[in-house]
């Protein structure tokens, strides 16, 4: 049960202003998260990963470590120097018995695409072989680790045409591939009986995020029509910046244009009006021009009357 954060803006931000300095930064979330659903692992200490892009249309860079994020000096150093306008960050708490290894740290990349996941695929072992056999050779061979998350990424890639050789994808294409990935997982889970009402029902929490370096598509999803999915918040405005030196950050809204969008498992600050929950089973798109779109995922788990909560 992990925490993730993604950030996209018109102009680069210093990673420290996202990762280390804000009051409830992802580093804080790694040992003091507040909105955890799954209490098997109280801290997110099984490694972390940072992915960022230099410029649109080029491959991003990933830095992962199996050390807990709060104790990694290199992360502190890098965060004070690296600037980027598109950042993925992830702190990990392993579930499903996968190893604490760098290959199992989010995010992963393939061509220009970068992927991370917060949650787990319930009963993944029961569909893993099915999933792997559906992959083409190249994507199958690209899998390095053992996590359900990376396998979900492989499935996502198989929904795209020529995922390796292309510099960019339209946000609509990524959107559709994401929907198909979730639909495919659901289909297999159904077939494997994982989601049987009377059986050994294991829930899947599918907070996925993917980017090609220009668009971002992410989901807040659960295989249930009643329960809330793992938390996911977003915030947008003209600038994410410190108010004081003490880690008090705010999303400035100096105009009616979104120049910055942050999506995070937990709000990075305690400014209530800066953060908005992505409703459960909704897909969020950040377009290359920083327009935010929200689409309900209208499958069998869609329930417009699901109990809404601000958290």
């Amino acid at each position, binding site marked *: 049960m992990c925490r993730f954060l993604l950030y996209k803006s018109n102009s680069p931000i210093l990673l420290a202003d996202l990762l280390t300095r804000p009051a409830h930064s992802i580093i804080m979330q790694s040992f003091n998260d507040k909105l955890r659903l799954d209490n098997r692992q109280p801290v997110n200490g099984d490694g972390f990963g940072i992915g960022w892009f230099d410029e649109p249309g080029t491959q991003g860079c990933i830095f992962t470590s199996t050390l807990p994020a709060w104790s990694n000096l290199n992360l502190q150093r890098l965060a004070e120097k690296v600037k980027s306008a598109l950042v993925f960050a992830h702190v990990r708490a392993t579930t499903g018995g996968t190893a604490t290894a760098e290959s199992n740290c989010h995010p992963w990349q393939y061509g220009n695409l970068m992927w991370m996941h917060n949650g787990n695929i319930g009963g993944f072992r029961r569909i893993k072989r099915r999933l792997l056999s559906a992959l083409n050779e190249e994507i199958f061979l690209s899998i390095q680790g053992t996590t359900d998350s990376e396998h979900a990424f492989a499935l996502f890639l198989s929904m795209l045409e020529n995922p390796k050789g292309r510099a960019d994808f339209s946000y609509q294409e990524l959107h559709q591939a994401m929907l198909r990935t979730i639909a495919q997982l659901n289909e297999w889970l159904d077939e494997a009986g994982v989601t049987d009402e009377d059986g050994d029902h294991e829930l899947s929490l599918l907070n996925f995020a993917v980017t090609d370096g220009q668009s971002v598509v992410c989901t807040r999803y659960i295989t249930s029509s009643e329960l809330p999915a793992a938390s996911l918040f977003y915030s947008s405005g003209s600038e994410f910046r410190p108010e004081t030196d003490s880690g008090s950050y705010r999303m400035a809204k100096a*105009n009616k244009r979104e120049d910055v969008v942050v999506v995070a498992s937990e709000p990075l600050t305690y400014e209530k009006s800066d953060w908005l929950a992505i409703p459960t089973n909704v897909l969020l798109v950040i377009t290359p*021009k920083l327009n935010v779109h929200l689409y309900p995922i209208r499958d069998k788990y869609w329930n417009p009357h699901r109990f809404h909560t601000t958290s």
Partner: protein
Amino acid sequence: MQAAPQSRHIAPPPPLNQIGQVRCLQTLSQVLDSTHYTGEAGEGERDDDKRNGSVLSMALDDEHVFSGSQRGHIYVWGRDTFRLERILYGHTAGCLAMTLDEARGVLYSGGGDGKVRAWDVRTLQCLYVIYAGVNSGAILSLAYSRAHDVLVLGCQNTSIQVFDVANKDSVSREERLKEIAARRSGFFDSAASASKFVSCASSHARALSPADSAGPTNEPAEEYYVVFGHTITLYAHSGYVYSTLLSSLSGNSTGAIGEEEILFSAASDGDIKLWRLNGVALENIGSLDRSGMSDSYGGEDEDVCIHSLAVDDGLLFAGLQSGKIEVWDLETMQRIRVLAGNSSANVFSLMVHSHCLYSGAADGTVRVWGADLQSLGWISCGSDSVLALVAPKDDDLLIGGTDDGSISFWDTSAIVASLGDAARVSALGVYNVPKDNNSHQQAQQAQAQLVQEQGIQRRRHRGRRMLQALGQWIQLKSVSGVPELQSECRRAARFLKDLMRQLGAVDARLISSTPSSNPLVYGRFDASLPAANALPLAQRPTVFIYGHYDVMPAGDEALWRTDPFEMVGRNGYLYGRGVSDDKGPVLAALFAISEMAASGQLPMTVVFCIEGEEENRSVGLHETIEEHRELFGVPRLILLSLSYWLGESTPCLTYGMRGSIAANMRIESTRKADVHAGVWGGAVNEPLISLSYILSHLSDPSGRIQIPGFHDDVRPVSEKEEAAMRDLVQWITDKEAHAPLVTRTVLSPISADSVDLELGTEGLERSQSPLVVDHRAKTDLYNQLMQRWRFPTLTVHHMDVSTVAARSNTTLVPAAAQASLSVRVVPDQSLEDIAEKLRTYIEQLFDNIKAQRRQSGADGQALLDDLKLHLDVHPNAQWWLADPETPVYKAAAKAIHDEWRDALADVDGNDSKTHVPLLIREGGSIPAVPWLESFFAPHAVAVNLPMGQSSDNAHLDNERISLENLMRGRQIIQRLIKDIDQVLQPTHGLGDASSGS
């Protein structure tokens, strides 16, 4: 002659505001600027800093302009005064949307905090708070439907929500509060340190966020409402709902009879949708198909956000992220045009006004499009995004808010006029009643009708006409006493003369003064009743209005924030050289009188005497007036506005000024040349030492003037006077905490030292210290004012030696030394007597030197040279003291009080009656005033009505005048003149002389 080479590329046209097509009347700032003066700081706590001060939304009603700031505060500005009247606190995040229910007088504001606040526009109190649906995010747009009496909210979470205003109380209060309580957020509300959550609604609102308790709060809202789920259309769009607009399909936003009202919504998903309001439910009735035509005008991709919508005459306009504006025909639902500005900056705001489309964009421009969608040009707002535009229905005015926190008021009448809309142009010209309409009755009737029909509108147009004239007049650099600017002075004089003619003066002319000095501008408005004009002018009682059109040089232009000779309106003030001294007050008087004449309400003949040498010792004024005495009739009242309020907020009436005597003295040696001190020193006279000797005997080290008999005639301070002065000091320290007068007194180094000393000796008795400070400050202020107004003073301005060499070479004995000094005299000192005493005393001191020198010569010290004294003493100005008890003064005080009563009423109630206006004196001198009074004696009495405030900075950099003061100054003159014949009647009837002195 060679033809000019043709330009190869067409330069972009200059902005309309640069070529004078559009004038900026005023710029207000939500952001408190550190360079503002103390007086401005007192207007309200503008705590938004520049980074957080964006104007995100605007609305207006008849009296106010409302601007919503990034911090969530709503600033309420007087539409006519441009004054900040109030800051409405409540929203804890940016106020992104506002709309007005005009019939109810309710302003709705939508915040980034997910709440709508309803404000009473009369009391400016919050009526109630509406919580938008759960997890709505920011409220980005608001529209109020009169037809359905509902409020429509466009939200960040892509929903459109309807709040049923009419039936808002149908859900019980308990249920509403229960709903609000159920929304408590686990994350934020447990994190917030003070989670004093209780079910009581009012404390709930405060506990929600620490920001709630920060800053002053208005009256706590009594009622809380909630937008419940059944009136929310979730996922109405797939993006942020940036714009909602109610209109009929024919495009009449007011909603013609029988036409259905349609809701248009636009969002960051690039969709424009149409909705029908079925009670409180929304029914989607279609959308404008933007996607299919993406290539027809240059490949606009689908990733484009729509920020703004506007409707006019069957057309819908959509402002895009890409800088383009789409034009849709609502009849056919077809896109008929795409307007492209030069830039690719977000079109944040659209406004249709007088059939022109205005678009405000992120590149700091407002582009203007005519009725046939041709571009009419653009207005430049610097580099700041134009986020909000509003325009009053009844005025050619466009108000734009930008992300640097400023609000600019643009006069668009020239654009409207250029489109040939004759009706509107004539509405602007109403101040100008045709001259040939000389039938008094007719004029009165016409006026009554105009007043009825156009009331406020007319007043605004007249005010604007006056400001336009003042702006043009300020541009003329009429600095007197500078030969190269003499032609500019003459142009300023001609400008005024022409303006007087335009405004209906029966006579307006330039009267040439002494050679090489600037002409005097003369204008006359005859009394409205023919009977009052029966006497020939030379014998007719008149009101004589004195002023001047010359100005001081700009001084150090680097100190000015804007061009001194370009009038700029900023935060309720007009800035520019001469706005306060004295062009502004002169025009206020001229427009006051011309309006009265035009409406047949002028009881007496009024003559204007506006000179051009006031700042240059009024050279030639006496001679010119003497020569043309017959033009001025028999002045009964001499009216001028050439002084300032004592502070910033209390109107004043000036009744006394000191007189002045200037003197130059020069002590010369007969040797004519500087000599070497080492070679000749001891054997020659020392002019500078002699000069210093004389100067050092003019006053003693305590500052008391030593001229024999100098103090003999200073009128003793009566008990009444002292009491009145103490009362004045009390008022000014109580009410004018921000006035420079008070702050400087309290903070002046001398005073501060004394206070510190006292505190030091009193040790820890802290409870006494504020009293001590207070008492000390008042005593200081009392003494200061007495010294400035009531007692004479002597100043040495300057000392110098004969040659440049002697000034810098420290081994020379100068051949001559000179000094200039002045004396300010007070009642009952005689100007001539004091001048004579000064002369005699200096000569005596000089004789003394000579005698002692002779004595030393007799004792064997031979001197090679002798000393000579040249002494010029100019009695410049008599002191002037009016009697505030006379009917004219009482009438003037009443006029001031009545005019300002409404503004002061809520502050000080009854107290203001006895204190407004404050009766004040000035330490300075205006030679013309006592001279005119005595020249036109025995009938004339002078009244000096100050318009400006103490912070006006006359003669200094950034000279300014409060626009409200100027407008009210004009009204005060009208109030005073209206019945002036009655006021002056008694003395006139008796024919006796006294004007009270």
